[in-house]
């Protein structure tokens, strides 16, 4: 019996050590931005093939900050939608030809984690609306816009 009690105390103390070790604060490592992901396709005859534009410029209408500035090799463009509004309009310049692209959507909050907090997910309510200058056609593959990787629209130019 006397041999048993010290053993039990060791186990109880080990519990306290476990408790102290468990009190480490966490950090945010998850993706917090939910972008609309657009892939670029060209049409060669009747064949449509995945191809990055030679240059791509992208920015929000009436915004000073440029998302892509004559960037080359952009296979998938990331469009940040405005969670405060029900639509976002972007100016997109593909190989020097300017177009505008409007998205209409609804936004809703999504908890990423305790450490990261909340972000907004979006749901496209309509098909994207281009002016059809640089963009020949557009096609929605997934209306739900989340932080996960996955194509949402295909832009044919």
């Amino acid at each position, binding site marked *: 019996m006397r041999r048993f*009690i010290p053993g039990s105390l060791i186990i109880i103390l080990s519990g306290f050590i476990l*408790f102290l070790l468990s009190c480490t604060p966490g950090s945010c490592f998850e993706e917090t931005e939910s972008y609309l992901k657009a892939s670029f396709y060209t049409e060669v005859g009747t064949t449509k093939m995945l191809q990055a534009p030679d240059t791509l410029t992208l920015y929000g209408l009436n915004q000073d900050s440029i998302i892509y500035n004559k960037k080359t090799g952009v296979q998938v463009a990331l469009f940040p939608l*405005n969670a405060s509004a029900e639509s976002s309009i972007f100016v997109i310049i593909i190989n020097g030809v300017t177009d505008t692209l409007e998205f209409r959507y609804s936004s809703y909050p*999504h*908890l990423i984690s305790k450490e990261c*907090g909340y972000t907004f997910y979006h749901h496209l309510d309509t098909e994207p609306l281009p002016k059809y200058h640089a963009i020949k056609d557009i096609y929605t593959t997934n209306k739900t816009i989340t932080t996960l990787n996955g194509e949402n629209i295909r832009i044919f130019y």
Partner: protein
Amino acid sequence: MGRTYAYSISLLLLLTCNLIQVQAQDTIPIPLKIKVGMEVSGPAIYYSDKNILNAEGYISVDLDEKKSVMFAAGYLNYKYSQYNYSYLNRGSFIRIGIDFNLLKPDKSLGKYWAGIGLRYGLSRFTSQVPFYDKEDYWGTTSSSIAQKTNWGHFVEISPGFRAEIFRNFSIGWSVSLRMLLYTGTGKDLKPVYFPGFGDGTKTVNAGLSYFIVWNIPYKKINAIIKKEVPEESDDKSDTNANATKSNTGTSGSQQQGGSIRP
């Protein structure tokens, strides 16, 4: 007649004494208890951090020397705030389940418990997000999520240890491994933290609990101690012993059969 009666009584007493002696060799008296426990780390944490108040108590009733049923109830008032959101959750929870003592009766003696508990938990909570901010390309969006009440369900495996340090007074701890079954909040607005379970953004959660327990003995039972069967090292002596047994205990025909074999 009187002598016969006295003789019968003596014989009965003798048999009873023998029976008690046999029982004393194979069993051990174990007190079955009703245990009333209180989780102490919750109030201790609240003392240093006023944003988390977790209070929990339980009642456990020993069914035998190995098993006991338990019922726990608790309350949580949780407040969390960081640079981009704040979160409130308040509610209560219950746990019901069964505890298994893995110690042998001669080690536990009704005082020590090292085992595992299996529980089902049910939580009713009201959560609210007074504000959250999201900064992105277009600027900062601020919003809030209104107060809502939900029910959470979870299961729990809880290995742990208890030791009676004073008469009818135990302390101990347990590690709780919890698996979330349902929160009722949907996948987008999972609870940051909810009563009885903890971090609601994770499907599997772990926690540590520390208990002080008041034990109330209500019954004594004799628990059987399983004696270890001594290993028989000498095969020859074993064979000889068996042979002796069979010679003395078997019928004549079997003895004849044994003698016929080459």
